[in-house]
């Protein structure tokens, strides 16, 4: 019996493959009523490359300098033990002075698929602590990984960071920041 992965690979056939990014997923949710787009997304078919040489070929791409600027911004925000990030959360999101519990998942896991799974499991555990308002719950999760199912497969959303603090009414407030990469298993 063939697995969902095998069947989706059959659908894709020889078409070029592309792993969806968060912005692609976000765009896809706007027209989730289009079965063709949904099948292309689930089977990781790169529709841009598929259209090469045709009337529908796209003549644009993402600016690599924009990526570099983004990465530099990320580094600067997390420099010196997340000093700038803590400052921003205090001034702009009203985080109290004691809300500086940081869990750096990126630092302690290998930068590969296994590390991604470990980070997803750890993020789930930490989010449970936040939801339960446990005293040891973190306020900042660096390199959090969230998961969801797409076409029967687990997709991993990598967040640059995820911040949470006790809100005025005592409920945990979670602010994911720039969910960047998505990988599907």
């Amino acid at each position, binding site marked *: 019996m063939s697995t969902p992965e095998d069947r989706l690979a059959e659908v894709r056939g020889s078409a070029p493959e592309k792993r969806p990014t968060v912005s692609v997923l976000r765009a896809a949710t706007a027209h989730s009523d289009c079965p063709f787009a949904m099948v292309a997304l689930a089977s990781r078919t790169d529709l841009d490359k598929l259209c090469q040489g045709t009337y529908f070929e796209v003549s644009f791409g993402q600016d690599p300098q924009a990526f570099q600027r983004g990465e530099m911004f990320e580094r600067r925000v997390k420099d010196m*033990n*997340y000093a*700038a990030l803590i400052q921003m959360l205090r001034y702009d999101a009203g985080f109290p002075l004691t809300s*500086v519990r940081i869990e750096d998942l990126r630092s302690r896991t290998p930068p590969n698929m296994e590390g991604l799974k*470990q980070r997803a*499991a750890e993020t789930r555990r930490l989010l449970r602590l936040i939801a339960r308002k446990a005293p040891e719950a973190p306020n900042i999760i660096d390199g959090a990984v969230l*998961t969801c199912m797409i076409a029967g497969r687990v997709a991993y959303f990598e967040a640059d960071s995820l911040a949470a603090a006790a809100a005025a009414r005592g409920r945990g407030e979670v602010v994911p920041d720039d969910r960047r990469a998505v990988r599907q298993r």
Partner: protein
Amino acid sequence: MLSDAAGLAEQAADALRRGDVEASSRLQREAESAWWRARRLGQRQAKRPARVRAPSARERTVAALTELAVPSSPKQIAAYAEARTGDAFDVRALASVRRDELRSWSSGSKRDTYIVPALEGPWFQAGRGRLALSHWPLRQRIVGPLSPRVDHLHTCLQIIERIESADADRESGGRMRALLAEYARSIPGALVDAWTSGDDLEVSRIRTAVAAELVLIERDDASSREREAERAARRLTPEQLVWGGSMPQVVAGRSG
């Protein structure tokens, strides 16, 4: 050379005691010649400026971590080392230092201290982000949720101490003040305004602000580190206590 001269002088005295005046005179001349050579060499070396070997990246890292006394990122170590001496510190050198330390440990050679990763998370994994020294107590090498901020504040206090120390010259004091301004920027009330630079910061004001923030979180961090150190001592092997444990493999994923 001086011991040669002394030996010859002794032989000359023996020869004289035996009544061999000729041999005694010859040995006496040789002894005097050896003594003059030794004296000239000493004078030459005194005139020549001492050749000081530049400390290696490893030595500078150990020195910086010893003073900071908290797990620190390579970038923080480099910034502190540069501010202390004024010499550039290439942070890329730390990548090879890190590999060499583990290799040296594995080969069984003995060093006074090793540059090791800080231990992070519930499984005490080797963190890629922060370095520590192997001889530090376990609780000092463990990074808990509050530790990055507490360590940041302690680093501020260490920099203040360097600025106020008697051996801080004008140049290194200036560099340290610039570094302190960067560190203090995120501490409420530490700087007069966001544009305060190293030249016009008030050290006493920063110390007060650091203490005010530390009092809120330091005790929690210390007890958490202590607790985790006891747990680590129970569950890790001697090697893992230095180089970190491993996280269990995830056997089944789940969405949510």
